[in-house]
């Protein structure tokens, strides 16, 4: 440690005062400053590139589908939509602007929301295997959907599957939050409760399935396997508002999430009210994930894998990781949508399967790669 006065005899004299002044005048941490600027540059660059790729893929995805409509027809009709002019061919317009556009927007928003929820979950629970469904959201939502489809039981009349799925998605998380208020809200406790909730609601859902008619059963499975093509513009608007609100809230807390990554003691010493923050983040991300799941069904792997991919490029600073993950998630879902429509065209592969096929191996690859580095 050459920067430090290495003498053993303590002698508070002018000697050390001068040495101190000397060190402080010399500038100073050159590598640090360079490293910091370059890190920032790289991170911003990745985010910009990811955003551009997402937009390009989205623009391509809108032109994919089994209905006969050309590339230029799609964009013509989108232009009519933007400018508000009456389209000459209203059925083609319907396909482009009222079926495909909501579909791609849903993919985008769901990808963003699930990825941000996953990133926050992983940071908050300090666990690389956490994803938005860790708190039992998917099991709860499945149960709610099954309830609506098989028993016709709607929590709010006219709310249909969506409201049911949302309410029941939130219930496990609410139970966990209440339990962690009684005990301390430690990450381990939360994860264990989440797993417990998952098993409970899965079991209940299976119970219903046994008693169901075949058509109802297929409807439930269809819902569970995930789909982004069932939304209309009003749905997209709802999802947009919720994802936007959730993302802004979580982004605002991203710096605190960074500090929480040091551990509860250090975080408290740095001024963070850890239990409160964790609870708030949980509530926000649960609402966001539950809202998405209730419209799209259960699309797995996006929330789990996107943060890991983003982390490779932008590191663990959540102020960059959250937007980067969001873009990766959106990209992942849009690409999955394209693949799901192209692979067995004109039939569609369920999107949850495609995300598993992409996400699973990707995640395995990341795990294997990481461990090799750890050894080196």
């Amino acid at each position, binding site marked *: 440690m050459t920067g430090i006065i290495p003498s053993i005899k303590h002698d508070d004299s002018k000697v050390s005062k001068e040495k101190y002044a000397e060190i402080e005048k010399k500038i100073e941490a050159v590598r640090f400053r360079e490293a910091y600027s370059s890190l920032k540059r790289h991170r911003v660059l990745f985010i910009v590139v990811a955003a551009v790729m997402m937009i390009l893929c989205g623009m391509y995805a809108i032109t994919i589908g089994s209905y006969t409509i050309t590339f230029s027809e799609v964009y013509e009709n989108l232009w009519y939509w933007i400018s508000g002019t009456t389209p000459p061919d209203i059925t083609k317009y319907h396909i482009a602007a009222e079926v495909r556009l909501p579909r791609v927007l849903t993919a985008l928003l769901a990808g963003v929301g699930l990825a941000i929820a996953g990133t926050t979950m992983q940071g908050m629970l300090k666990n690389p295997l956490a994803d938005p469904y860790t708190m039992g959201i998917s099991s709860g939502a499945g149960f709610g959907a099954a309830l609506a489809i098989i028993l016709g039981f709607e929590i709010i009349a006219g709310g249909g599957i969506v409201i049911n799925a949302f309410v029941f998605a939130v219930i496990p998380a609410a139970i966990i939050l209440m339990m962690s208020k009684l005990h301390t809200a430690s990450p381990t406790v939360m994860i264990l409760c989440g797993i417990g909730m998952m098993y409970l609601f899965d079991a209940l859902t299976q119970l219903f399935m046994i008693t169901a008619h075949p058509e109802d059963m297929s409807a439930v499975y*269809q819902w569970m396997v995930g*789909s982004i*093509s069932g939304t209309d513009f009003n749905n997209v608007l709802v999802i947009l508002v919720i994802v936007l609100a959730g993302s802004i809230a979580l982004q605002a807390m991203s710096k605190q999430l960074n500090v929480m990554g040091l551990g509860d003691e250090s975080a408290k010493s740095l001024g963070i009210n850890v239990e409160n923050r964790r609870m708030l983040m949980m509530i926000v991300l649960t609402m966001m994930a539950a809202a998405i799941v209730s419209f799209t069904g259960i699309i797995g792997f996006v929330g789990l894998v996107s943060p890991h991919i983003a982390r490779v490029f932008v590191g663990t600073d959540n102020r960059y990781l959250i937007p980067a993950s969001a873009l990766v998630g959106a990209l992942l879902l849009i690409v999955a949508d394209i693949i799901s429509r192209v692979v067995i065209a004109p039939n569609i592969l369920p999107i949850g399967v495609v995300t598993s096929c992409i996400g699973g191996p990707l995640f*395995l690859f990341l795990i294997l790669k990481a461990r090799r580095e750890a050894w080196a």
Partner: protein
Amino acid sequence: MEFGFGGKAMPLALVLVMLVGSFALFAIYEVVMISNPDPHFHSHEYSISGTFYGEECEGIMTSEYKPESTSEYIYEYKWTARSENHSYDDDFGVFFGRNEMPLESIYDYIGEEAVGDKVLQIWSYSHEGIDYTLYVGELCTIEMVGITADYMLLIAVLKK
């Protein structure tokens, strides 16, 4: 990336379980879907007869279900017809909501009519100068389509 608990095998095992889980779900889904094919997923052929500019003509119309959306039943209709000196072709879409009714934002409801032993709902749709009259039966199957324009009077009837 550090995996605090379980070391090496745990995360791998967990991911494999997740993968197997989603494939199992997909397999069940496929089995269920195959054993319960949705009767709305259909394609039909229609034979067209009528007049063009006063000339007799005939043609074919096809309808095909397009899996674009899970909240609507979407069908693409294409037809061509020819007479001695003229021919025409067109395509249009018919979209039904989950309630098996054409979307009110695009099609206008006219009424109902008994044809044979069925009661058909009548909807209309206009497109580039051509008026289509859709006679809708069950399961989003259109039994007949009337195609009229200034110079054209055609009827497409579902082939049995």
